[in-house]
């Protein structure tokens, strides 16, 4: 029996028309998230992480090409009407953004903003909506929620605002929360608290979380599985253990090496040489090949590698991966 995934992204391709040319933001993205799972989506700035999730919610207004499938509980979101999407957004799938300082509307109180969403999706009257708002503020462990509902965003600290954002995200009992760099703008101690709350909510509410980050530390802390993106492709996915211990893609390895060690002093941070590729005229074949240390001429630059499977949970896209000893067979998916 095939278990139905909560979200499945199949061969997603997204292009934009700009004055300079066609930006090939996503070329072939494949992702899946199970119920009650936290998936980390990692990659450098500009690799297409945000475009991917904005496509899921159909929030891109200026894309010239969108093809592939985004199956949410088996239903292709790309085929829904705008009206039907309004019932998905904020209800089934919610989002937490990177900038808690600017993601909330400055001229409405926290309560007004929460209640707008709650009344829209839960069919509650004003009084019940307010109760629900206070309830979710409690869930994200904000002190004195009765007081905070009447505050404007600027009266709260960054960490508190991000909790309000999370409260909004869970207010209508969603099935999937997408968190786009939820802790990047916050202090390290606040970061840990926010991650703790997310993990707690997953356990308490059974909600799935897709967390976008470029911080592998965050991934190690709360994720079950990881997907690594590079220039419009998901180039490797696996469980946290698989990726951290047996990454096979040279790019993933490079990322892991670039984590600055805490214990020892290093002369120079490890970096992957070269730049993130231009998306208008991307490199041929595997888009990582100009920066790759295992580049094979005539192979890597000829055609984009197809998706290969190592274990049931571990997939990658590479012609010349770091395979564990003993493994020679490659299985095309």
């Amino acid at each position: 029996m095939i278990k139905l995934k909560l979200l499945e992204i199949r061969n997603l391709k997204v292009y934009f028309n700009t004055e300079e040319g066609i930006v090939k933001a996503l070329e072939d993205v494949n992702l899946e998230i199970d119920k009650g799972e936290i998936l980390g989506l990692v990659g450098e700035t500009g690799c297409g992480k945000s475009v991917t999730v904005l496509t899921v919610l159909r929030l891109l207004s200026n894309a010239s090409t969108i093809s592939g499938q985004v199956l949410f509980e088996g239903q292709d979101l790309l085929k829904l009407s705008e009206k039907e999407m309004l019932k998905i957004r904020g209800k089934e799938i919610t989002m937490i953004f990177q900038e808690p300082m600017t993601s909330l509307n400055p001229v409405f109180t926290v309560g007004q903003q929460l209640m707008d969403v709650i009344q829209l999706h839960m069919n509650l009257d004003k009084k019940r909506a307010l109760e629900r708002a206070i309830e979710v503020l409690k869930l994200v462990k904000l002190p004195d929620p009765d007081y905070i509902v009447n505050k404007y965003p600027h009266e709260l600290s960054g960490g508190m605002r991000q909790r309000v954002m999370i409260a909004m995200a869970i207010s209508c009992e969603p099935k999937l929360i997408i968190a786009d760099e939820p802790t990047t703008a916050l202090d390290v101690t606040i970061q840990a608290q926010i991650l703790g709350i997310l993990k707690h909510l997953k356990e308490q509410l059974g909600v799935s979380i897709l967390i976008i980050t470029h911080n592998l530390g965050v991934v190690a802390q709360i994720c079950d599985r990881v997907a690594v993106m590079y220039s419009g492709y998901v180039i490797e996915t696996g469980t946290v253990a698989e990726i951290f211990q047996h990454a096979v893609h040279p790019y993933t390895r490079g990322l892991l090496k670039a984590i600055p060690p805490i214990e020892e002093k290093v002369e120079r941070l490890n970096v992957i040489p070269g730049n993130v590729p231009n998306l208008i005229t991307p490199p041929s074949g595997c888009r990582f090949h100009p920066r790759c240390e295992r580049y094979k001429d005539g192979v890597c630059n000829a055609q984009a590698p197809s998706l290969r499977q190592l274990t049931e949970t571990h997939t990658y896209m590479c012609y010349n991966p770091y395979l564990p000893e003993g493994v020679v067979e490659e299985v095309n998916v």
Partner: protein
Amino acid sequence: MGSVTTIMDENKNEKLERYSTLRVVLRRMKRNKGGIAGLIVVLIYFVIAVIGLWIVPYHPDEPDFESALMPPNPKHPFGTDLFGRDVLSRVIAGARTSFTISIFAVALTVFIGLVIGTIAGYVGGWVDEVLMRFLDIFMAFPEILLAIAIVAILGPGKINIVIAIAVFSFPSFARITRASVISVKSNDYVEAAKAIGESDMSIMLRYILPNALSPVVVQATLRMGTAILTISSLGFLGLGVKAPEAEWGTELAMARSYLESAPWLSIFPGIAIVLVVLGFNFLGDALNDALNPRLKDR
């Protein structure tokens, strides 16, 4: 950025630095169609103002009562006025009047504004405070009223109109200059010049002013439009240049009485004003976009 760092292309930075000068401004200007249209109108206006009196078909001031109040016709494409003067010739002559007054008015405004703004911004402290409160008082008057008051005191005439315009325009200039000077002042090269003991005067003239000028250029262009509007407004109220000299606002004031019998009198001078002011506004906007690309809405 994150834990993944990429090597910066250092050459790129250097290039950026070199290009962010006049050439970039010109290139950005070229892409702005409104700006080019504005520039063309302004240039035509300049040319007409300078050579207008040689190309007019008729003498603009000499009456010819036999052909009074003629509607537009092949001989007089814009018609004639009460005294039989050719309206086209008067519109051309009017360009010269408004050009002369506005250019001197804006020059005077820029001069006063720069002096006060630079001193306030550079010296700071109580000098700044006093100068700013002084400007507040001038800014408390609606513009045209201040101009009327000054013309009332000094009497009509070109020079007095120049002064009137400068008096109500300089405060906004001084403020813009001051803000710009304050932002330039904190740059390293100013600190360096201070450190090697250059005098305040030379720092202001050599380092601060040239770098603080771009908002002033934009404002001066836009102010040309305002000045032209003010000149015609004063003219319309009867406080403009003395008769029989042609001036667009004065023409329109006369036309007011002949709206029914000779509507063409009130059409052409008005179109001339709108076109020229529009030209300066387009040009000013384009300059603003080109000089401060960050402010441009995408």
